[in-house]
Protein backbone atom coordinates (compact mmCIF):
# COMPACT_ATOMS: atom_id res chain seq x y z
CA UNK A 1 0.00 0.00 0.00
CA UNK A 2 1.25 3.44 -0.96
CA UNK A 3 1.56 6.32 1.50
CA UNK A 4 -1.36 8.76 1.02
CA UNK A 5 -2.46 12.18 2.30
CA UNK A 6 -4.80 10.39 4.74
CA UNK A 7 -1.83 8.49 6.26
CA UNK A 8 0.12 11.75 6.61
CA UNK A 9 -2.80 13.53 8.26
CA UNK A 10 -3.16 10.61 10.68
CA UNK A 11 0.53 10.95 11.63
CA UNK A 12 0.08 14.70 12.30
CA UNK A 13 -2.92 13.92 14.48
CA UNK A 14 -0.93 11.35 16.48
CA UNK A 15 2.45 13.06 16.70
CA UNK A 16 1.85 16.79 16.47
CA UNK A 17 -1.51 16.85 18.23
CA UNK A 18 -3.41 18.68 15.49
CA UNK A 19 -7.10 17.76 15.38
CA UNK A 20 -8.25 15.70 12.38
CA UNK A 21 -9.54 18.68 10.41
CA UNK A 22 -6.39 20.77 11.04
CA UNK A 23 -4.19 17.81 10.09
CA UNK A 24 -6.07 17.28 6.83
CA UNK A 25 -5.88 21.01 5.97
CA UNK A 26 -2.20 21.17 6.77
CA UNK A 27 -1.33 18.27 4.45
CA UNK A 28 -3.45 19.89 1.71
CA UNK A 29 -1.76 23.24 2.29
CA UNK A 30 1.73 21.70 2.21
CA UNK A 31 1.28 20.26 -1.28
CA UNK A 32 -0.69 23.27 -2.55
CA UNK A 33 2.02 25.77 -1.53
CA UNK A 34 4.67 23.68 -3.30
CA UNK A 35 2.48 23.51 -6.45
CA UNK A 36 1.81 27.26 -6.30
CA UNK A 37 5.52 28.09 -6.02
CA UNK A 38 6.36 25.84 -8.98
CA UNK A 39 3.46 27.34 -10.97
CA UNK A 40 5.03 30.78 -10.32
CA UNK A 41 8.32 29.50 -11.71
CA UNK A 42 9.99 29.21 -8.27
CA UNK A 43 11.96 26.07 -7.47
CA UNK A 44 11.43 24.48 -4.05
CA UNK A 45 14.37 23.31 -1.93
CA UNK A 46 13.53 21.09 1.03
CA UNK A 47 16.80 20.35 2.77
CA UNK A 48 17.25 16.71 3.76
CA UNK A 49 14.53 15.66 1.32
CA UNK A 50 15.24 17.12 -2.11
CA UNK A 51 14.72 19.92 -4.64
CA UNK A 52 11.86 20.44 -7.06
CA UNK A 53 13.37 22.24 -10.05
CA UNK A 54 11.88 23.55 -13.29
CA UNK A 55 13.22 22.86 -16.76
CA UNK A 56 12.23 24.51 -20.00
CA UNK A 57 12.19 22.01 -22.83
CA UNK A 58 12.24 23.14 -26.43
CA UNK A 59 10.05 21.57 -29.10
CA UNK A 60 11.26 18.18 -30.35
CA UNK A 61 10.08 15.68 -32.93
CA UNK A 62 7.84 12.90 -31.63
CA UNK A 63 5.80 10.09 -33.05
CA UNK A 64 2.36 8.67 -32.40
CA UNK A 65 3.31 5.19 -31.16
CA UNK A 66 0.07 3.71 -32.55
CA UNK A 67 0.09 5.12 -36.06
CA UNK A 68 3.79 5.90 -36.47
CA UNK A 69 2.79 9.38 -37.61
CA UNK A 70 5.33 12.13 -36.88
CA UNK A 71 4.02 14.92 -34.64
CA UNK A 72 6.08 17.60 -32.92
CA UNK A 73 6.15 17.61 -29.07
CA UNK A 74 5.56 21.26 -28.17
CA UNK A 75 7.92 23.32 -26.02
CA UNK A 76 6.99 22.98 -22.36
CA UNK A 77 8.05 23.60 -18.77
CA UNK A 78 8.43 20.50 -16.59
CA UNK A 79 9.13 19.75 -12.92
CA UNK A 80 12.07 17.54 -11.98
CA UNK A 81 12.88 16.21 -8.52
CA UNK A 82 16.48 15.88 -7.34
CA UNK A 83 16.62 13.88 -4.10
CA UNK A 84 18.93 15.28 -1.43
CA UNK A 85 21.99 13.42 -0.17
CA UNK A 86 20.27 12.39 3.07
CA UNK A 87 17.24 10.88 1.30
CA UNK A 88 19.49 9.20 -1.30
CA UNK A 89 21.60 7.45 1.30
CA UNK A 90 18.54 6.34 3.29
CA UNK A 91 16.95 4.84 0.17
CA UNK A 92 20.16 3.31 -1.18
CA UNK A 93 20.33 1.03 1.81
CA UNK A 94 16.91 -0.40 1.03
CA UNK A 95 17.49 -4.11 0.22
CA UNK A 96 14.39 -4.45 -1.96
CA UNK A 97 11.32 -6.67 -2.01
CA UNK A 98 8.25 -7.06 -4.20
CA UNK A 99 6.82 -3.69 -3.04
CA UNK A 100 7.98 -1.55 -5.99
Amino acid sequence: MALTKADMAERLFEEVGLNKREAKELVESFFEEIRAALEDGTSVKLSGFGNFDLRDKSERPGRNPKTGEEIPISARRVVTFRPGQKLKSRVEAYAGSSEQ
Partner: protein
Amino acid sequence: MTKSELIELIAAKQQHLAYKDVELAVKTLLEHMSESLATGQRIEIRGFGSFSLHHRPPRIGRNPKTGEPVALPGKYVPHFKPGKQLRMRVNGEDATNS
Protein backbone atom coordinates in the same frame (compact mmCIF):
# COMPACT_ATOMS: atom_id res chain seq x y z
CA MET B 1 11.64 28.64 -1.88
CA THR B 2 13.23 26.95 1.13
CA LYS B 3 11.72 24.80 3.86
CA SER B 4 11.50 27.75 6.27
CA GLU B 5 9.80 29.93 3.63
CA LEU B 6 7.31 27.12 3.02
CA ILE B 7 6.63 26.90 6.77
CA GLU B 8 6.03 30.68 6.90
CA LEU B 9 3.61 30.57 3.96
CA ILE B 10 1.57 27.75 5.52
CA ALA B 11 1.61 29.43 8.95
CA ALA B 12 0.30 32.69 7.37
CA LYS B 13 -2.64 30.79 5.89
CA GLN B 14 -3.38 28.64 8.96
CA GLN B 15 -3.71 31.54 11.40
CA HIS B 16 -5.31 29.36 14.09
CA LEU B 17 -2.15 27.25 14.38
CA ALA B 18 0.97 28.30 16.27
CA TYR B 19 4.08 28.77 14.11
CA LYS B 20 5.87 26.11 16.17
CA ASP B 21 3.13 23.57 15.36
CA VAL B 22 3.33 24.29 11.63
CA GLU B 23 7.10 23.95 11.77
CA LEU B 24 6.86 20.60 13.55
CA ALA B 25 4.10 19.45 11.18
CA VAL B 26 6.15 20.19 8.03
CA LYS B 27 9.19 18.43 9.48
CA THR B 28 7.02 15.46 10.49
CA LEU B 29 5.54 15.28 6.96
CA LEU B 30 8.97 15.25 5.31
CA GLU B 31 10.25 12.66 7.78
CA HIS B 32 7.17 10.49 7.14
CA MET B 33 7.76 10.70 3.38
CA SER B 34 11.50 9.90 3.68
CA GLU B 35 10.78 7.01 6.04
CA SER B 36 8.21 5.63 3.62
CA LEU B 37 10.66 5.63 0.70
CA ALA B 38 13.47 4.28 2.88
CA THR B 39 11.31 1.22 3.59
CA GLY B 40 10.42 0.75 -0.06
CA GLN B 41 6.88 2.13 0.17
CA ARG B 42 5.77 4.45 -2.66
CA ILE B 43 3.93 7.74 -2.08
CA GLU B 44 0.87 8.75 -4.10
CA ILE B 45 -0.58 12.27 -3.92
CA ARG B 46 -3.37 12.90 -6.42
CA GLY B 47 -2.83 16.11 -8.38
CA PHE B 48 0.74 16.45 -7.11
CA GLY B 49 2.57 13.30 -8.14
CA SER B 50 4.02 10.03 -6.98
CA PHE B 51 7.37 9.05 -5.51
CA SER B 52 8.74 5.57 -6.05
CA LEU B 53 12.09 3.79 -6.11
CA HIS B 54 13.99 2.92 -9.25
CA HIS B 55 16.56 0.14 -9.17
CA ARG B 56 20.10 0.71 -10.42
CA PRO B 57 21.74 -2.62 -11.30
CA PRO B 58 25.25 -3.47 -10.03
CA ARG B 59 28.03 -2.23 -12.31
CA ILE B 60 31.78 -2.06 -12.61
CA GLY B 61 32.99 1.45 -11.84
CA ARG B 62 36.49 2.81 -11.96
CA ASN B 63 38.63 4.63 -9.50
CA PRO B 64 39.15 7.87 -11.45
CA LYS B 65 42.65 8.34 -10.00
CA THR B 66 44.13 4.91 -10.60
CA GLY B 67 41.78 3.62 -13.35
CA GLU B 68 41.38 0.48 -11.26
CA PRO B 69 37.99 -1.29 -11.69
CA VAL B 70 35.71 -1.33 -8.62
CA ALA B 71 32.60 -3.49 -8.29
CA LEU B 72 29.63 -1.26 -7.36
CA PRO B 73 26.60 -3.01 -5.85
CA GLY B 74 23.06 -2.40 -7.15
CA LYS B 75 21.04 0.27 -5.37
CA TYR B 76 17.71 2.07 -5.26
CA VAL B 77 17.20 5.75 -6.09
CA PRO B 78 14.12 7.91 -5.36
CA HIS B 79 12.06 8.90 -8.40
CA PHE B 80 9.29 11.53 -8.71
CA LYS B 81 6.61 11.53 -11.40
CA PRO B 82 4.59 14.79 -11.44
CA GLY B 83 0.81 14.38 -11.44
CA LYS B 84 -1.51 15.83 -14.06
CA GLN B 85 -2.56 18.96 -12.17
CA LEU B 86 1.04 19.87 -11.29
CA ARG B 87 2.20 19.23 -14.87
CA MET B 88 -0.53 21.46 -16.30
CA ARG B 89 -0.15 24.31 -13.80
CA VAL B 90 3.62 24.45 -14.22
CA ASN B 91 3.19 24.59 -17.98
CA GLY B 92 0.68 27.46 -17.75
CA GLU B 93 -2.33 25.33 -18.71
CA ASP B 94 -5.73 25.63 -17.04
CA ALA B 95 -5.97 22.79 -14.50
CA THR B 96 -9.28 23.74 -12.84
CA ASN B 97 -11.03 20.59 -14.03
CA SER B 98 -8.27 18.13 -13.19
